[in-house]
């Protein structure tokens, strides 16, 4: 009897340290119950309030446990500097994205429908697209996704990581299909994302199996040990690592696993795109950093060339294809791909001999880019005509004359993407490239600098189009944003400016946080 009890002894769980994600999962579950039991009219305020409060609460808890450095839940979850930093980042970016998601003044009833899977073009779909009192399902989905992302960046074994991957991916697939306008495009995006994402997950899972075959363990620390001591065939290790990397790089939108990005970014409802561009990047790179530098640090040298090659490909393909885009959302999607390349440069800069600049600058980059990209997509939601958002670039001609304020804001954000000094884009690129150069990756820095010039062109083209072209009859108006979108834009733009002129506090914070526990 005593024996059985010992065998069933549950692992110690530090609930306080895990509270940020627990709060979000709890709130998401409550959100589902709200959908089931609250009246239609009351759901929107309740859901919005619940999501906002839970995100703020999660953020508060992150701050309160900020000094925790431990493994908990039987070593399945790491609560360390990078995990907490990224959890905080996810909470803040989640709040900003939530403000865009919750905006209802631009479109009666908000930009979402209730059911993603109704066949597009049918009567039922038309009916649901015209309902004004539905579409609150997106809030619990958002919370589940954020909770999953938080778990993803702090998972300390491969199986937990896989579970987290699925927990945040499934809501995202669904959210992509919820657009009220252009239903077919939205569903196509959701299906594409789902299918490719399912493949990526399968690769990831297969990779776990390979690694398990090699190390006999799925725990990161154990894998780290096994790489030195195991006598098994290394082929298993490399194959497993490659398959894992495919799964992670898919989420990070690195070339050649990027093909879903433009279609999904274009088809998904813009607030969801903003959420994905900011938060999915954080989650994917958080997990990538942890996998590489906690579990596979001893093979990092073998990896360097491969990941370096992928980084170069990502930067080049992202920036070159961005030049040819004619749709603003696709343009931002390719820019997001190129930014994944710059982040990979930062990932590679995480060197041995106690140099944490690469990790710190990558985390800084994730925050800076997240704020700018949420605000940029926020502006995209404002440029509308009778059919919804006008995303074709030709329609943006002369927007500066129609509404100088938002055109100016968008220009500022594009300058940040282009890495012009006094914006967060410059600081973050400088930090990442500086760290990469310090760890001897000069060739990546050179290519990074060249591609950022190429990438400056599409941005500049948009700026020229917006300011120097005559507004045509086709130029849509810019809707007056409601309080929520205004707040999101203000936060995003202010952060972009502040991180450009006074980045030191966040740089300090990220470099203090930049140490994994194993």
């Amino acid at each position, binding site marked *: 009897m005593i024996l059985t009890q010992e065998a069933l002894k549950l692992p110690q769980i530090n609930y306080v340290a895990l509270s940020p994600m627990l709060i979000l999962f709890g709130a998401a579950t409550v959100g589902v119950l709200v959908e089931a039991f609250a009246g239609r009219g009351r759901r929107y305020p309740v859901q919005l309030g619940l999501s906002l409060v839970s995100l703020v609460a999660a953020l508060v808890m992150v701050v309160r446990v900020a000094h925790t450095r431990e493994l908990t839940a039987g070593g399945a979850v790491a609560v360390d500097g990078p995990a907490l930093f990224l959890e905080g980042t996810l909470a803040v970016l989640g709040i900003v994205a939530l403000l865009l998601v919750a905006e209802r003044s631009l479109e009666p009833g908000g930009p979402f429908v209730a059911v993603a899977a109704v066949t597009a073009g049918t009567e039922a779909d038309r009916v649901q697209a015209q309902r004004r009192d539905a579409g609150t399902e997106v809030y619990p989905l958002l919370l589940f996704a954020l909770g999953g992302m938080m778990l993803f960046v702090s998972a300390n074994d491969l199986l937990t990581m896989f579970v987290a991957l699925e927990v945040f991916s499934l809501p995202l697939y669904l959210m992509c299909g919820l657009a009220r306008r252009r239903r077919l495009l939205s569903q196509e995006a959701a299906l594409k994302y789902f299918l490719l994402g399912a493949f990526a997950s399968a690769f990831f899972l297969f990779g776990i199996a390979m690694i398990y075959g090699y190390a006999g363990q799925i725990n990161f620390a154990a894998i780290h040990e096994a790489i030195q001591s195991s006598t098994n065939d290394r082929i298993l290790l490399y194959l497993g690592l490659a398959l894992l990397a495919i799964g992670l790089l898919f989420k990070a939108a690195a070339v050649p696993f990027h093909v879903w990005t433009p279609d999904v970014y274009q088809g998904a409802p813009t607030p969801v795109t903003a959420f994905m561009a900011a938060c999915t990047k954080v989650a994917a790179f958080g997990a990538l950093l942890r996998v590489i530098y906690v579990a596979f640090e001893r093979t990092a040298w073998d990896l360097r060339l491969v990941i370096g090659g992928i980084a170069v490909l990502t930067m080049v393909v992202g920036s070159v294809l961005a030049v040819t885009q004619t749709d603003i959302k696709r343009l931002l999607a390719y820019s997001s791909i190129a930014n994944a390349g710059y982040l990979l440069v930062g990932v590679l800069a995480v060197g041995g001999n106690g140099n944490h600049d690469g990790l710190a600058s990558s985390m800084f980059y994730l925050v800076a880019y997240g704020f700018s990209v949420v605000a940029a997509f926020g502006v995209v939601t404002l440029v509308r005509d009778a059919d919804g958002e006008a995303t074709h670039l030709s329609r943006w001609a002369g927007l500066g004359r129609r509404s100088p304020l938002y055109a100016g804001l968008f220009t500022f954000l594009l300058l940040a993407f282009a890495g*012009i*000094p006094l914006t967060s884009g410059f*600081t973050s690129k400088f930090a990442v*490239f*500086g760290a990469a150069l310090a760890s001897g990756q000069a060739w990546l820095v*050179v290519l990074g600098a*060249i591609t*950022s010039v190429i990438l400056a062109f599409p941005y*500049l083209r948009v700026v020229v189009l917006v300011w120097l072209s005559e507004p045509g009859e086709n130029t849509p108006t810019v809707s007056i944003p409601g309080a929520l979108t205004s707040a999101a834009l203000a936060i995003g733009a202010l952060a972009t400016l502040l991180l450009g002129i006074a980045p030191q506090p966040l740089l300090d914070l990220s470099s203090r946080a930049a140490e994994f526990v194993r």
Partner: protein
Amino acid sequence: MTWVLVAVLAVPAVGAVFRSRAVAAGAAAIAFLLSVALATGRSDGGLTGPIRPWHQLDVSWVPGLNLRFHLGVDGISYPLVVLTTLLTLLCCVYLLWTDGDGTLAALLLVIEVGIVGVFLALDLVLFFVFFEIVLLPMYAVIAGWGGAGRRPAARKFVLYTLFGSVLLLVGVFVVVSRAGTADLVVLSAQHMLPADTQLAAFILLSIAFAVKSPLWPLHTWLPDAHTEAPTVGSVILAGVLLKMGTYGLLRVAVGVLPDGARRVAPVLGVLAVTAILVGGLVCLAQTELKRLIAYSSVGHMGFVLLGIATLTATGFEAALIGNVAHGIITGLLFFLAGAIKDRTHTGDLSELGGLRETAPYLSGILGYAAIASLGLPGLAGFWGEAFAVIAALRRGGPLWTVLAVLAALGGALAAAYFLRLLYRVTHGAARPAVVGIGEPVPGELVAWAPLVVLALAVGLVPALVLGVAQTAVQVMAP
């Protein structure tokens, strides 16, 4: 005095916010007075390195990126700072009198902040930040207020400059990460980089600065940008923006990387003399007024670069006074070209004949500026070119002697094409385009007069520039 360093940047920055011509002129005037005042209370502060700022301000900004807000002014930067504030002031006054645009004036102030910042920065990263700030407002000035072909011209300008910025950025990265500091005072005092790193970094930086200067064969953006830019844009572009390149080459590339400089200097010298000759020959064949002046800039900047390439104190002095003289004279020439084009709506030399008949004062000033530009002794243009040739001769050896001779020939070419310009434009019977055009209005005269006076003053008393710069140049020359 350190507050003046900040104020000279802050005043135009604040003035730009209002987007009003009157405010811009006021801010530019205050900035000019402040910049002149920088010369008071000079002392080398007991420093012994090659850079001994009279005043400096050193505040930590972003230690994580090695970025310090480190400003300082010395004999090399002071004349350029004053030139910048003066030309910006004159441009703002010009806009005030003519039907200028408040936004255009505001952009000029932003450009001023960037350029003055480049001249004042004593931190390499800060230098880069200011270098970049100039790019977009200048692009906007050309693309927003330029002539018919402004879009392609502006695009070309951006393309070249961004290309230069990338090389500059990589060069800055190399220097800062290898040396572990971005402080220009420290970097120029202790050359801690190994020779190969110096060579690589020098090549990167000198190409970056050569794009800006511009040095042949990276100059092709310049004529287009000048031809299409509005008058004030051309004045700022030629007057001071190009100086960022030569100043950067002198202070950053040569100052921080002397070993690299020694190894590349002959190449720079050859390119500089090629620029002088090519600029002169192209000018002889030019038929468009602003293009001609733009190409003459290529030649003049060739002399400046030749001076720097000799790596001697005489050469540096030549570069410095050449920079200032070119800023004054070419600024004036572009003002005049703008005035003529505004009146006649053409820049074609063959259609401008007989200007002397219909607007004798205007053509008189044009003649004065052209003669100053061709390097007549007694006017400002003479010293820079003469000293550059002398510096190359003194450097000795067959290569430098040949370069000196060719550069002197290039100086003669300048005389030829400017006299051809005057012959075409001012002499002969009045062509239809110049009939009935007005003489300079008071606003224009106010904007031009300081330049006319300075061209003579610097020509007669070169010590105006060289006096303040002498110590700085002497300690800098290797």
